[in-house]
């Protein structure tokens, strides 16, 4: 249960403080990007020199081909299963590349020294042969790999948004300043008007006589026992209301979002990349626990994804690319993956995640019952996880919340032979075609408490 009525109270009293804070915020934000921009600038200059004349190929078609065929094992600027490929056309002979790409093991067999060197360097893993690629295709790919690094453009682009933001801040400040000024003028004018009117009244002699001192209002109030009683009852009742509200939220950790040892973004994984929940939380299908995926599951993808290259969507401005890449590095440290040598070191350091959903021990909950049998979407209890940058507890996880769902949810019975007989008998008994979990006995104490 939420705390009733307290938050509006608080917000009212602290409105002014907030207003001040907002003003301060704009001022600091205006400073930050300006400082960041110069730092990034020197990095931009260097790679531009690497730009080489592209061959006959079409880099756009090459990019598509590269992503379809090569990207599983190669990156442009970093080692993966295979070497980094930027500028490979400049390093090596084109004929050699044609041969190598079409059938690398042939080249190795022929005893080519360079081929052998590469083969041994990369753990003797044979590169898949691509006989289907024509020389033109390969030219296209090489044209793509010979493109200069785009990084500087990105950095420059990064600096640009800083400008408007700064301007924006100052505009706001100006508007605010003007408003305050207007307000001040208004107050000044009111005071002025008042004093002028009083002066006029005085001059006209119509100034009212000061009243004789009667009983002060608080004394009159204190004397009226009925009013005191009513107030006391009102105060008692309202404080009881708040105390009850406070007590009822003890142990309810809705919106609990602890800081995790690795900043894991469900938004990037489940949202942007559309990874199915049960790809990682596979035991939710068969076990009572949804399970936190073991690190080897992470490495299924992250063996190849060593850095964050997400869309330059404004939603990520909160965290920088470097930040995300550093978080991936934390995973590597935990699982013991040596990124540069593409090897497991064997030194592991299990991740101590902070558990968010904590059911009390006396409540039995089984994921497989809900996920596999009932076919309930994970989001029903866990909220729009695919939009969560930081995972939090969506549902209150109180018994009332469970029970309510059991009352409302119709049991998915179609195609499950277990329910055939029960469904026939129960639907006859209750005279309904759809049965809720409650009608199936889902409200009995012992179904969850044993």
């Amino acid at each position, binding site marked *: 249960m939420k705390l009733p009525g307290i938050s509006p109270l608080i917000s009212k009293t602290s409105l002014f403080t907030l207003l001040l804070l907002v003003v301060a915020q704009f001022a600091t934000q205006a400073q930050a990007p300006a400082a960041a921009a110069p730092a990034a600038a020197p990095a931009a200059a260097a790679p531009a020199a690497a730009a080489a004349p592209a061959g006959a190929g079409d880099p756009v078609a090459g990019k598509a081909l590269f992503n379809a065929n090569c990207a599983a094992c190669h990156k442009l600027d970093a080692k993966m299963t295979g070497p980094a490929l930027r500028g490979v056309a400049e390093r090596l002979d084109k004929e050699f590349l044609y041969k190598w790409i079409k059938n690398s093991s042939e080249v190795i067999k022929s005893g080519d020294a360079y081929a052998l060197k590469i083969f041994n360097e990369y753990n003797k893993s044979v590169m898949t042969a691509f006989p289907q690629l024509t020389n033109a295709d390969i030219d296209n790919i090489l044209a793509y790999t010979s493109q200069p690094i785009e990084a500087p453009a990105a950095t420059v682009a990064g600096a640009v948004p800083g400008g408007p933001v700064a301007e924006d801040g100052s505009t706001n400040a100006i508007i605010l300043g003007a408003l305050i000024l207007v307000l001040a003028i208004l107050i000044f004018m009111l005071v002025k008007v008042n004093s002028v009117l009083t002066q006029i009244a005085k001059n006209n002699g119509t100034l009212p006589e000061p009243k004789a001192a009667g009983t002060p209002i608080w004394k009159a109030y204190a004397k009226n026992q009925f009013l005191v009683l009513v107030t006391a009852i009102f105060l008692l009742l309202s404080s009881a209301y708040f105390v009850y509200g406070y007590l009822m939220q*003890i*142990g309810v*950790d809705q919106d609990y979002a*602890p800081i995790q040892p690795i900043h894991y973004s469900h938004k990037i994984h489940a949202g942007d990349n559309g990874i199915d929940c049960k790809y990682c939380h596979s*035991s939710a299908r*068969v*076990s*009572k*626990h949804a*399970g*936190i*995926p*073991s*690190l*080897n*599951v992470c490495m299924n993808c992250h063996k190849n994804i060593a850095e964050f290259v997400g869309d330059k969507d404004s939603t990520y401005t909160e965290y920088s690319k470097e930040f995300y890449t550093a978080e991936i590095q934390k995973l590597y440290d*935990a*699982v*013991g993956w040596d990124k540069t040598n593409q090897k497991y070191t064997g030194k*592991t350091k*299990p*991740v*101590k*995640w*902070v*558990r968010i959903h*904590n059911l*009390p*021990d*006396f409540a*039995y909950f*089984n994921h*497989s*019952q809900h996920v*596999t*049998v009932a076919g309930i979407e994970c989001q029903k209890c866990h909220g729009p996880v695919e939009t969560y940058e930081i995972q939090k507890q969506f549902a209150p996880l109180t018994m009332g919340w469970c029970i309510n769902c059991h009352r409302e949810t119709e049991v998915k019975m179609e*195609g*499950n*032979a*277990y*329910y*055939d*007989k*029960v469904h026939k*008998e*129960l639907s006859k*008994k209750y005279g309904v075609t759809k049965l809720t979990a409650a009608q*199936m*006995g889902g409200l*009995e*104490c*012992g*179904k969850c*408490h*044993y």
Partner: protein
Amino acid sequence: MSSNKKYWKSVEELNENSSIVDALRSNEFVEEIPTDSFLGNADKLNATGTSRRDFLKFVGFSTAAATLAACEGPVHKSIPYVVQPESVIPGVADYYATTVFDGYDFANVLVKTRDGRPIKIENNKTAGATFSANARVHASILGLYDNYRIKQPTIKGKTADFDKVSNAISKALADAKSAGKQVVLLTPTIASPTTFKLIAEFIAANPTAKHVMYDAVSSSAALDAYQQAFGTRGLVDYDLSKADVVVGIGADFLGDWQGGGYDKGYASKRVPKNGKMSKHFQFEANMTLSGASADKRVPMSNYQQIQALLTVYGVVTGTGVSGNVDAKYKDAVSKAAQQLKAAGSKGVLLCGIDDKNAQLLALAINAALTSEAYTTAGTRLVRQGSNAAIAQVLQEMNAGNVGVLITSHVNPVYSLPKSYGFEAAMKKVPTSVFIGLRSDETAVASSIVIGSNHYLESWGDYSLLKGSYALAQPTIRPLFSANKQFEDVLLALTGRKNLSYYDYLKANFPVVSGGLSWGKVLHDGVSGTYAIGQSTGVAVGDAVTALSAAKSEGPYELNLYSKVGMGDGQHANNPWLQEFPDPITRVSWDNYVTVSKADADKLGLVNVNVANGGLNGSYVNLTVGSAKLEKVPVIIQPGQAPGTIGLSFGYGKKEGLKEEMQIGSNAFVLYQNFKSSLPVSISKADGEHEFACVQLHKTLMGRGDIVKETTLEIFRTEDASKWNVAPMVSLDHSPVKAVEVDLWDSFDRSTGHHFNLSIDLNACTGCGACVIACHAENNVPVVGKSEVRRSRDMHWLRIDRYYSSETTFEGDNEKKENFDGLTGDKGSLGGFLELESASENPQVAFQPVMCQHCNHAPCETVCPVAATSHSRQGQNHMAYNRCVGTRYCANNCPYKVRRFNWFLYNNNDEFDFHMNDDLGKMVLNPDVNVRSRGVMEKCSMCIQMTQATILEAKRSGREVRADEFETACSAACSSGAMKFGDVNNKDSEVASFLKDERMYHLLEHVGTKPNVMYHVKVRNV
């Protein structure tokens, strides 16, 4: 007018000059109260700066601080695997088939593991898995998580790593070799072909070495007899499912006789089918499980048993041999002998007399009968120890001829009589190596100690029956990485430090298994084949004459036995087994001398119930030859043969176990010459012993609706309404059946599942496997001796044992029915008193009682907070978190099955059992709550298991199969007495049991309509 009278309180006041009066006028007391003397050091108090106000401030601050701190919720960490093993899914149980053999108990089991830790032992039901788990095997899982296990090898008390230890042993072996001294490998019986091979290799490497097998509780007589008759050192694995007449002479085959494990076959013949069931005669001294189940039990001394055996031998073989049976037993013995002979191949004789000649005669009798139970049975290899070999070893040790003694999983310092002087002899051995689980008496006396792996951490193979093959596999990584299993030590000592026993075993597998598939045997745990049959030619030689020379020695005869809970004492540090009440005496946390009522009167020994409900008993001193055992408590045991007393092994251990478990008296002290039957003298000792006995009412006092029973004759010929009488109540002044009267509307239970548990009193042998299985499945706490004594035991499932006060229960009922008036011959006043005490040789009935899951439950109606409520599936639910502990429910339960948590039994030093240490807690079942202080608990009919079964079916999109539902107790019951299932499924076994004419409900007249049903006990008298 008011009076000016002066009232005075004492004469002193009249004396105006008294100083006391003066003092009292201003002070309450004449003298100053000597507060300083009880406040302690006054100077120190004055010196401290803490004033009373400061104290209050501290109290206030700490209360506030604690309150504030309590507002913060705890942070839980979740740590996933780095690389998750493919077979492990967190939250899903895995089962591994393995084989248990610890030198005493053996079984083919499945081990349930959750998240990588074994949590329960189940019976392996694959074809070929012959041996079911008994109570001790079920409890052995707790031995894995025993904090008293050895965690590090030591040399002379100093910890060392294994390399250092094995080097030290190798050096000692080399020394022994060069000095020409012997190396003795002392182990319990090993029935493992691969271990035998390894030992042979060890002996080949150390030519002066020899391997001696030592059974703490010896079966040497039977082994010698079998060896003489058939050449193999083994025992007959009788198949009692083929016997219509069973004659037991001193053989507790439902207990531990020759390894035990005969329940399944025996029980299958005890349930009357088509008006037929087996007939069982039992001649024995102590009251045993077998005697309790017998149709005709004759209590007699060991001497008389020998005479009975001779008589039976004479009758069966027609040789005219006749024993000198006492007149009062003659009838019974000759009747048994004749029925056995008449049964022919359908009869079997089981003999437990600790004498080679007697064992030979037993083989000869079965051979002469061509008993199918004997001729078609396999050969057990689970006992191979030899008394003579042990004596030889002792002699060599004392003579200083032994250079290295390696003991593995045996504890001779404890289990050999003190007069043998094993400990002193060990001092004469330069290097003594101990390999075992706990730092027991032998470990303390050894110079090198190596912690062994538990069987759940070890590899192994077994040939429990001749020709059979079974594998044992680890179910968890060794908890203590410094420990080694015996075989790994041997590999290291034969110079193969880098070879693991697993590799050795696997390499040897094709040789010993005879072409079986490793994967299949590992999966099943066993291969189904074994060698069948004993030959019928048994030469008895001069056994008859030798036996006839036996003399009755006095004044009393001591019969040593092993208790169902404790066996040979290996599990003495197991709180489940310590708290397990003995099925016969119902005493937990103790061993004791059992004496007959007549002898107790003669010796002035008493058992009394004291005010708090506890049982107290006298002490006695026992003397066997020169061996003395002092202050052994006494239980007066109905059915104990007069002139005999009983005492169980396994207690009185002092090393390697918790203080709470160091209880009882060590019967091994009296175990002279490995004779279980010995002349003893008894004298009463001072004092009274406090027992923790869970059942004080020994008899039913004629309440025939608790245990219903009848005879086979009546069962066969009469209508069920005669012997399974439905209780009647009065409605509108006319009698109606109790089941037809109802105060409440009934639930509609026709839809979905409706669980029922069926308990057949005919098949139940009281073995107690269900009690321990329930303990393990449901996280039932152990409460300790003093709490059990206060009737606060927590067992969800108890096995009530009832004696009859007349010769039969029927006799009790008749007697009660015929009461007439208060006094006189048939007076109820004296009559009830008589009914209270069990007769000299009573009939015994076992009745497992757990929550009856009443459809009209009295507990539910009185709960003020609706913590206990009913389900449509027939289970009576208990929501612990809702319970406020009024205990109304327990008071209103007619079956007394509810258990109250008087204390917090976990994480509490006052209850320092397995739930108080991190290791012991690993055995807890994560699917069941651990209850806290102040809540009521009871049998849930294993709702976690039924729910899991339902979920399994739902997930696979199928209906639940007919007999798929199980509870922990029904799954553990190897005799088939307990069956569980869904009565709404017409194909299920319980649905048919519900219609059985033997079916009745406990206290049916109360109208509770239980979901647990019992079946009338039928005796073949």
